[in-house]
């Protein structure tokens, strides 16, 4: 056995022991400091939490939150406008040339005369509709005449033909958000997802009803609808009319695009809103037929009248009231119907009544005068 004598070994171990003792001492000091800081922090947090619950602090917090919300909403709105303008200004390949629409003069095999275009509410995030809406559309399809074609799956809140996933700048955000929803389908994620989609679409409704930006947004959407109609065989000389059916915020998009779509497609366009939330700011001068299917218990549509004061009779010179003086607005009130859910227009309880109202309006307006020459 080789080794050092015991006195030498002890001498060699001593510095190690001393170092270990020093480290241990420092460790204790650090731990005590951390514990003290933690205690102080806890006290501060408790004190702050107690302060936060004071009415003055809550008021201040609410003021700050409100201010931040206003700024964020305004910035998101401006961003949303800019995304629409990107195409209008001719960037990102610009918008398709409308003069190339329906240029194929030949008759198509499509023998439909009336085209009912469905524009969904603000919950829409992609071209496909939720099951309840799909069932409703199936019911509508069965009830309309054979010479009428129901066009569905148009995303009313994007300019491109794809849903939110494929939007130009924010596509990555929506892709990640929807992927998160697919992988973690819990209530919180679903709520965040629905909130983001609806907030985005509400802003689009706001843009459509805005006096400054609305015309651009409405033109872009009208062009998108016209291109879709072109692709399914719509030809102006064969068709008789286009009917825009808009649910909730889709009502605003329908009213906003009606006149421009009439110019693009060169046939009469009429509008039917279901529980519509719309401003009435859209140009409707040459649109003869507008009908509203409303629920007697619809709080959202009632709120829409306040959010869009132009529809109140207090402002007789507003665009909507001027239109009403020269045209008759058809109203179909359904007793007990709400805005959505189990008592909404797509519920089994009210689906039939809504479809019936739409069919009645389609029959009534079939005899309306033909297209007046647009300005």
């Amino acid at each position, binding site marked *: 056995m080789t080794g050092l004598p015991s006195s030498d070994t002890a001498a060699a171990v001593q510095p190690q022991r001393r170092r270990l003792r020093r480290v241990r001492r420092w460790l204790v000091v650090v731990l005590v400091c951390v514990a003290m800081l933690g205690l102080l922090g806890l006290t501060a947090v408790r004190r702050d939490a107690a302060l936060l619950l004071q009415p003055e602090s809550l008021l201040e917090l609410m003021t700050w939150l409100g201010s931040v919300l*206003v*700024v964020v*909403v*305004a*910035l998101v*709105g*401006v961003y*949303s*406008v*800019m995304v629409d*303008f990107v195409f*209008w*200004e*001719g960037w990102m390949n610009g918008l398709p040339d*409308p*003069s190339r*629409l*329906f240029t194929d003069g030949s008759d198509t095999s499509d023998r439909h005369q009336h085209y009912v275009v469905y524009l969904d509410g603000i919950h829409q995030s992609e071209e496909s509709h939720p099951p309840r809406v799909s069932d409703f559309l199936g019911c509508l399809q069965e009830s309309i005449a054979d010479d009428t074609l129901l066009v569905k799956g148009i995303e009313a809140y994007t300019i491109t033909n794809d849903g939110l996933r494929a939007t130009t700048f924010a596509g990555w955000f929506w892709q990640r958000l929807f992927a998160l929803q697919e992988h973690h389908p819990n209530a919180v994620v679903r709520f965040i997802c629905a909130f983001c989609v609806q907030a985005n679409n509400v*802003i689009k409704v*706001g*843009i459509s*009803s*805005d*006096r*400054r*930006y609305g*015309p*651009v947004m409405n*033109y872009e959407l009208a062009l998108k609808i016209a291109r879709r109609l072109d692709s399914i065989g719509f030809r102006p000389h064969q068709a008789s009319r286009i009917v825009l059916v808009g649910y909730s915020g889709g009502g605003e998009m329908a009213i906003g695009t009606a006149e*421009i779509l009439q*110019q*693009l497609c*060169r046939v009469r366009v009429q509008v039917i809103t279901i529980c519509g939330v719309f*401003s009435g700011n859209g140009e409707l001068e040459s649109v003869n037929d507008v009908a509203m299917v409303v629920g007697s218990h619809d709080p959202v549509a009632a709120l829409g009248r306040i959010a869009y004061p132009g529809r109140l009779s207090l402002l007789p010179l507003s665009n909507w009231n001027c239109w009403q003086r020269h045209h008759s607005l058809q109203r179909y009130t359904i007793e007990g119907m709400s805005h959505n859910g189990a008592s909404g227009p797509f519920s089994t309880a009210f689906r039939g009544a809504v479809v019936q109202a739409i069919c009645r309006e389609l029959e009534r307006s079939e005899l309306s005068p033909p297209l007046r020459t647009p*300005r």
Partner: protein
Amino acid sequence: MPDQLLASLESMGQLLLAMDTGVGLMFGVGLSMSASHLFALLANRLTPRQIFLHMIVDALVLSLAFMVGILCHSLMLMLLEGVPLQPITFANRMGAAMWPGLFYVLAAAPYVSDLIAVTLLAWIHLNVMLLLQAVYDVPLQTSLVVALPGFVLALLLVGLLFAQRWRTSYAMLAREVSGLTPP
């Protein structure tokens, strides 16, 4: 509660008085107001030169509105409180009241723009009233009377400018869309 409100308004007035803002604030407010128009001008596919010209006209009308407001306030102050007519001194003292105008660019937001614009303009008006109280010792009720005519006049000018812009925008856009649609 009313006493508390009055006290907080008075402290706001003192705070405004302590703000030494100078010309930079006016420049910032003017820039913010012009920028709020920029997005609407983009809707008409104007060239950068045309946009610049429009913004110059906007800035001139906004300056005119500001001057008319200041002149009116000074006149009212002289008539009601006997303060000598000194519009430049008055403008120097009232400059800080304009700070909410820095956020006027937010009026570019769709649909809520009117609400934002009215709120900011009302806030500026409140600031003018508070400064009148802090600088000239005019009670709030009287300062409302002093500041109202000038504010209404300035608002009318700004309103006319904005309405004219919208009409022009509509006309241009309608022409463009008509030009785009097939015959």
